[in-house]
């Protein structure tokens, strides 16, 4: 059975989309990530226009982070204050990102820019995760206690505009979290990712937040920033496909629950190593896509021409 997507203007098999949503959902449930970094390239490979693929991620991420956020809120594992500072930066970032995205569309460079950003980020994050998880696996084998890497953050304590974050047990300047939020807001609007894979390490290693509140706070900020991004993409670019978002989401929700129960049976270090391998292979495929001569050099852009 096919479904005609009103904004993407293509007809796609509905079971293919549900399956895609479920597959990415399993991965996101397994690793506790949003899965946008997989979904966007997969949709582009499936023939959805890159601009639609990217912006349709936004409502999807809102919905998928919503239930996780509620769960963390119940356990009081959300630092609302820190989240709000992060998302203030995130909304500014989203605004900048949507503007850059419109500009890239007018140049016809959305696909290239998105792919290149993916290659760079997936490459860097994948390598870092692989190194970290291999080290963790080794030390677990040796039975030695892992000494967590604690950066010296003296420079950060000299910044003005300090604020107390009770839930995170921090008293720091708001400049670093606003900058981090803004960076992730820009990436979210251009790449169609929630940014959890950058946000989580940034919260722990740069801000020094307690790991207990990190996931809930990240979900809170992703949810609000992506809601804002949905609205901005709808108004500025008219590229959000509601039908596509809902179908992917239905598959994704079910997949995520399966993934979460699978994840409970695997060890953390093993999971992180698998995720690193996955991130690196997606990055590699995209890199090859940029480097190998395409069989068709030409493309028709019927949207940008208006």
């Amino acid at each position, binding site marked *: 059975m096919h479904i005609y997507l009103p904004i993407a203007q293509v007809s796609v098999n509905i079971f293919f989309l549900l399956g895609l949503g479920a597959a990415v959902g399993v991965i996101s449930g397994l690793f506790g990530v949003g899965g946008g970094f997989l979904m966007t390239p997969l949709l582009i490979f499936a023939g959805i226009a890159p601009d639609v693929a990217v912006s349709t991620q936004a409502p999807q991420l809102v919905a998928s982070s919503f239930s996780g956020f509620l769960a963390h809120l119940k356990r009081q594992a959300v630092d609302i204050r820190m989240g709000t500072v992060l998302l203030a930066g995130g909304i500014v970032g989203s605004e900048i990102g949507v503007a850059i995205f419109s500009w890239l569309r007018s140049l016809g460079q959305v696909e290239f820019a998105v792919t290149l950003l993916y290659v760079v980020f997936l490459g860097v994050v994948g390598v870092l995760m692989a190194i970290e998880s291999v080290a963790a696996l080794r030390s677990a084998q040796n039975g030695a206690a892992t000494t967590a890497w604690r950066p010296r953050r003296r420079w950060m304590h000299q910044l003005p505009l300090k604020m107390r974050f009770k839930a995170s047990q921090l008293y720091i300047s708001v400049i670093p979290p606003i900058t981090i939020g803004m960076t992730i807001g820009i990436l979210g609007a251009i790449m169609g990712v929630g940014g959890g894979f950058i946000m989580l390490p940034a919260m722990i290693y740069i801000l020094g937040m307690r790991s207990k509140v990190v996931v809930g706070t990240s979900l809170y900020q992703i949810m609000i920033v992506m809601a804002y991004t949905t609205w901005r993409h709808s108004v500025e670019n008219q590229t959000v496909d*509601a039908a596509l978002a809902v179908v992917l989401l239905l598959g994704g929700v079910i997949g995520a629950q399966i993934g979460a129960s699978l994840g409970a049976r695997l060890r953390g270090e093993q999971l992180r190593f698998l995720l690193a391998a996955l991130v690196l292979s997606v990055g590699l495929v995209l890199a090859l896509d940029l480097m190998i001569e395409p069989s068709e050099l030409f493309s028709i852009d019927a949207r940008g021409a208006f």
Partner: protein
Amino acid sequence: MRAAVGIAAIAALVIGVATAWATSGPLDEEPVVAAAQKEVAITATFAGDELFVYGAVSRSRRLQKSDGPLDVVIVVEGPAAPIIVRKKKWIAGLWINAAAFFIAEAPSYYAVASTRPLLDILDKDGYRRVSLDGAVIMAGTPFSAEEPLEFRQAAIRLRRRAGFYVTKPSGVALAKSTLYQARFSLPANIIEGAYAVTVYLVRNKRIVGEQDFVIPVRRKGLEQFLYRAAMERPTLYGLGTLATALIAGYLASEIFRRLRRG
């Protein structure tokens, strides 16, 4: 079924007229056109459609041997729109869209079916008028880019591959020089608008008669609603999308959780 009834009706009409035909005088011919559907609706489950065009030739007198063979050409043309054709180039080791060419008007859909290959049955003027090559040249290509021809050919090639540009050199079936029919497939991602169907009669390399009519292609129901909302009320559409996504996501996860606990 509807088509068959239509053909029977037209055949009866033609036979009726035929009895009153004279056998001499100049030959005037004109196609009578019909289609199996009045419109094409793009609905939520739209996966392309088939357009069945049929009809008959009405003429002023009985055919004679010296009249020569009759050929029929049928053109279906979708609304024209501007496009940008982009070309990737190898820059610093990467393949990047590096050149672009603006085509002010190119038909979004162009299918031409005929009883025989167009070049065999038409002179230059006629060929230019009905052929795909003619259609895209007529679309007013501004010759300003570095290699305009290459871009134009690429546009035609890409649209051919996607099923938007179709040539069927033996796509028209003509029976007894009077009844004709052709089928056109419309791909799933055709755009909305008025699709013009024109039937040409060709004799001695020249177009001797033509008739056209329009089949509207429209979004219907949910498709129409979502598209209009996204284009005309983007803020409301964005909020609606969010609300729908939130509710759908929440309901799905609750239902699934309960099922598993079951």
